[in-house]
Each structure stands twice: as C-alpha cells, then as structure tokens.
C-alpha cells in the first residue's frame, strides 16, 4: 500500500532513509512527492531558482534500481535534496542568485555535491539566496523575494533563505547552505529548522562560489539535528581540491546523539545575552531551563573581545568580497542589486592594514573562547535578537525606546563564530505569540561538532516536535 504524499513529505531523512533501504517506499515516489510539493508551494515561497525535475526523476529511477539490487550507497541514497545556488553543479545553471551569472553552467561539481551524489542523493534543484550570499534577507532582486513559510510577508533570513524555506515548507528533505556571517544559522533560526555551521575547513569549499575565503563555511540545513549530523557525515573531510580543507579525523557525528547530557557544562555567553526582544529572551531562558532539567550545569561565561569579532568579520568580508567581485564591479556594476553593490563599494574604502589587523585579531577571540571551553563542553547564545522581520524592514522597535538596525540585531549573534571558525548549530526553541520561530545556537570547540550535535540532540528530544508552519498554497 502506498504512503500518502503528505506523510512521505513529513519524514525526516533518518526515517525516509530507513524506509527507502527497506524498500517500503521507492525513491521515485518520494521524488514525485517532492516535485509536486515544489509545484504547489514555490509560486509563493520562491525558494527555488532552478528545479531539475528531469534529472531528479532519472536519478530517482537509478536509485530505485540500485537499492532493489542491494547496492545501497548510504543514508542519502534516493533522498531528494537541494543545493544553495552557489554550489557548482556540472552542466546545471549556477547563478549565485545573481544576474551576472544568470547563464553560468559550471564544468565541474563542487566537492559537497560530488560526495552527496556519490552517496545517491537525488538533486531536486538549486535554491534561491541573497545575491552572491552577501546579505541576510534573501530578498533577491533578480530571482524573486524568498518568503518565510511561517509568515509570507516576512523574510526567511539569509543568505541561505531558500535552503531554510524549502526545508520548512517540505519542498526538500535536506539542503546545503553556506555561512560567512551567519547565513546557515540565521535562516534556520528565522524559519524554524536546524542549521549546522561546521568548523572552518571541516567541509571543502571547492566549487562553492566564495563570498569571503577565510570566513566561508559549507553546511547542512535540515529538519532535525540527526539529519544535520547525517548530512555532515557525507560532506565532511579533507579534499585535495581545497588546500585549506582540514585533514582532521572525521568522527561519527551521530554517535552521541542519543546520549545524556547530565553533568555537561554549558556556558551562556554574557556578551550575547542582551538586546534581545522580550519573546526571544523568554524563549532563550526557557531553553536554558530545559538544558538544566536534563542535568547540564548552565552558568555564565565571558569572552571579552567577542563584541569586536563582528567588526573583524565585517572588515574581512568587505575586503575579500571586493577582491572576488572587483572585475565585475569595474565592468558591470549596474548588474548588482543596490544593497550588494553598496556593500562592495564600502569595501573599496577598506585599507590593507585594517584587513591584516582584523585577521590577526581573530586569534585573540578564538583564544578567549577556547579558554572558556577548557572547563565547559559547549557555549550557548540566542541565534538572533529578534524574530523574522517583515520584508523591506530595515529598523525595528522591539520593546525598546530606540529603534535597532535589523541587520545588526541579527548578525551580532552569528558573526563571531565565523570569525573564530568554531562549529555552531542553530536549533528552534519556540514560537513567538505571532507564531514566528525563535532559536538558540550551541557553539563548540574547533572540530567539536559531535559535542554541539549531542547537546542539540538532547535538547531537541526534550523540546519535542516543533510546530509546523501554516499550510502554504
């Protein structure tokens, strides 16, 4: 008896994978369900730039035959996924969310896609994003405004806005995002799903259109912590094509997922525990209580230079992004959206000395963070100070006397861990009274993804199922 489409779409990757392997369901019917869901929702959401339906059907059929023959490639075999549209896919349009690369078809695959494809994943398509990943709204002037599945008049966050919107809308089972200042964790937080930024260098950046070489991270956006761990398992590890990728041993990221966290020490970062909206503060404090109820010790820690880490991130991004875009800024500046062009123009004023100083200063903040983690297992902070703002909003009044800048209120919480390169996972903690997702992030030691996954997994079990968004039509 076939499983209804809606039920298929509700399976997380772990469940779906088990059913595919057991041949309870076929990759073909799962892929058809997802393609139907994209058709149903994407007119509203604009999560996709390109839907690779023909290729997806072909890959699903191949997976069906292989699984039937007993040739199981791993947990993503036959699982329909989608990639942020700055991940190179050979012969498939890869726009970077830009007009400039509107017709660009790479001649090679990014390593993350090579590894997922080798694992049998089915590519549904390429996901919308903030133009060139340089912004956090995903209000893309060239490919459409990505909308938040919980409220279509609100941003999904960015730059991986399409990646998070597709997960929550059930129009992909798992997605890949990138994170230079928060671009995995912010959309995951504002859309109510899980976003895992690994340690810098843990995942190859080969074939991923860069925003800032020394801050870019590639990672999963998924429905559950287990799915994020499973996806990271496939994509992590050194790569000869990326000289900066780490040869550090890749552990079993799911190994501690079912473990207890009793006795673990969790540090609340004092520098990131202010300026929160009332709803975010309430949800964050409730999440801390949940962690305590699981037996963890939760206390406050301080990382004095952390507020400066956002400045380091900004300076480095301005300089490196301009270096990447300089030729186009000379020849076709009119083809950029206004906000991205403006950021690149500010980068023109960056001095070489400020860039080098920002790079040097990173070690100070990382040293302070590592010192705190000598007697704490993980750190915790809100993922953003506010819930998803309405599309077009630049300033917001959140129970304060003064308006605050939307971008600053969001980036302040995520940028520091791009600067330090530490692993960080965003996980939903609740809904605001308006029904908008709120999230916290757990931050670990360099190459300590397994620890943040373990704590996030325990929290997720205690929290229970997260309320889905209203029906999208």
């Amino acid at each position, binding site marked *: 008896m076939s499983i209804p489409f809606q039920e298929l779409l509700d399976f997380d990757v772990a469940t779906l994978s088990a059913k595919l392997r057991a041949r309870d369901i076929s990759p073909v019917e799962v892929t058809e369900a997802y393609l139907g869901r994209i058709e149903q929702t994407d007119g509203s959401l604009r999560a996709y730039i390109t839907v690779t339906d023909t290729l997806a059907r072909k890959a699903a059929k191949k997976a069906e035959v292989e699984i039937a023959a007993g040739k199981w490639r791993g947990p993503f075999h036959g699982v329909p996924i989608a990639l942020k549209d700055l991940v190179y896919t050979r012969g498939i349009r890869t726009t970077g969310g830009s007009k400039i690369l509107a017709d660009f078809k790479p001649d090679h695959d990014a390593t993350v896609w090579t590894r997922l494809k080798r694992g049998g994943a089915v590519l549904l398509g390429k996901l919308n994003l903030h133009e060139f990943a340089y912004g956090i709204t995903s209000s893309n002037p060239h490919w459409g405004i990505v909308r938040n599945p919980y409220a279509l008049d609100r941003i999904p966050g960015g730059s991986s806005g399409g990646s998070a919107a597709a997960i929550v809308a059930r129009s992909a089972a798992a997605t890949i995002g990138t994170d230079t200042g928060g671009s995995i964790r912010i959309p995951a937080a504002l859309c109510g799903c899980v976003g895992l930024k690994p340690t810098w260098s843990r995942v190859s950046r080969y074939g991923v259109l860069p925003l800032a070489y020394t801050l870019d991270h590639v990672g999963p956006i998924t429905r559950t912590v287990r799915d994020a761990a499973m996806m990271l398992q496939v994509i992590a590890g050194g790569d000869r094509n990326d*000289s900066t990728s780490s040869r550090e041993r890749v552990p079993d990221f799911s190994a501690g997922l079912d473990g207890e966290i009793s006795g673990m020490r969790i540090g609340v970062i004092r520098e990131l525990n202010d300026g929160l909206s009332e709803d975010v503060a309430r949800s964050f404090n409730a999440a801390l209580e949940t962690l305590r109820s699981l037996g963890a010790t939760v206390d406050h820690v301080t990382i004095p*230079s952390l507020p400066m880490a956002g400045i380091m991130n900004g*300076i480095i991004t301005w300089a490196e992004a301009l270096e990447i875009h300089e030729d186009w800024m000379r020849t076709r500046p009119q083809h950029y959206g206004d906000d991205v062009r*403006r950021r690149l123009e500010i980068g*023109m*004023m960056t001095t070489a000395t*400020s860039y080098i100083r*920002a*790079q040097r*200063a990173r070690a100070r903040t990382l040293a302070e963070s590592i010192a705190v983690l000598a007697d704490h297992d993980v750190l915790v902070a809100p993922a953003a100070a506010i819930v998803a703002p309405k599309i077009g909003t630049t300033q917001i009044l959140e129970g304060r006397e003064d308006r605050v800048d939307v971008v600053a209120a969001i980036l302040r919480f995520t940028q520091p861990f791009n600067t330090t390169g530490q692993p960080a996972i965003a996980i939903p903690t609740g809904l605001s009274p308006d029904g908008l997702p709120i999230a916290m992030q757990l931050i670990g030691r360099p190459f300590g993804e397994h620890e943040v996954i373990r704590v996030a997994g325990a929290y997720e079990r205690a929290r229970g199922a997260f309320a889905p968004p209203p029906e999208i039509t």
Partner: protein
Amino acid sequence: MPMVTAETVKQVLRDLYGYEISDAAAHSIARGAGAMLTLAGHLGSIGIAGIEPPFGYPVLLAEATRTSKNKS
C-alpha cells in the same frame, strides 16, 4: 575618527572603477567606511601584539602543488 569624505568615495569609484554615484550614496558609503576604519583602529586594543596573521606556508605550498598538477 578617520574621515572618509563623500568626495573621496566618488573619486575612488570614478578613477578606479569607472563609474559615478550620487552624492547621497557617496555620503552613505563614507559614513559606513569611516565607522569601519574607526573600529579597525580599536582592534589593537584587545591585545594582538605578537599575534601573526593566519596565513600559513602549508596552504601556499599546497595551492602551488595543486595548481601545477592541474596545469600539467
């Protein structure tokens, strides 16, 4: 505070990038850049004496090796 003027911004864009922007845009960029340079000046205050920039020879060597293989 380091001063970046709108005139400087306009001149850089005109002379180095070959296009013009409005006065309002130039003022906005100048404000952002001035703030950035001020804050960059403060980075020294967090104690970075003796810290090397994180650009290592192993990556340089690996890139040279990789690109030479790609060319052959």
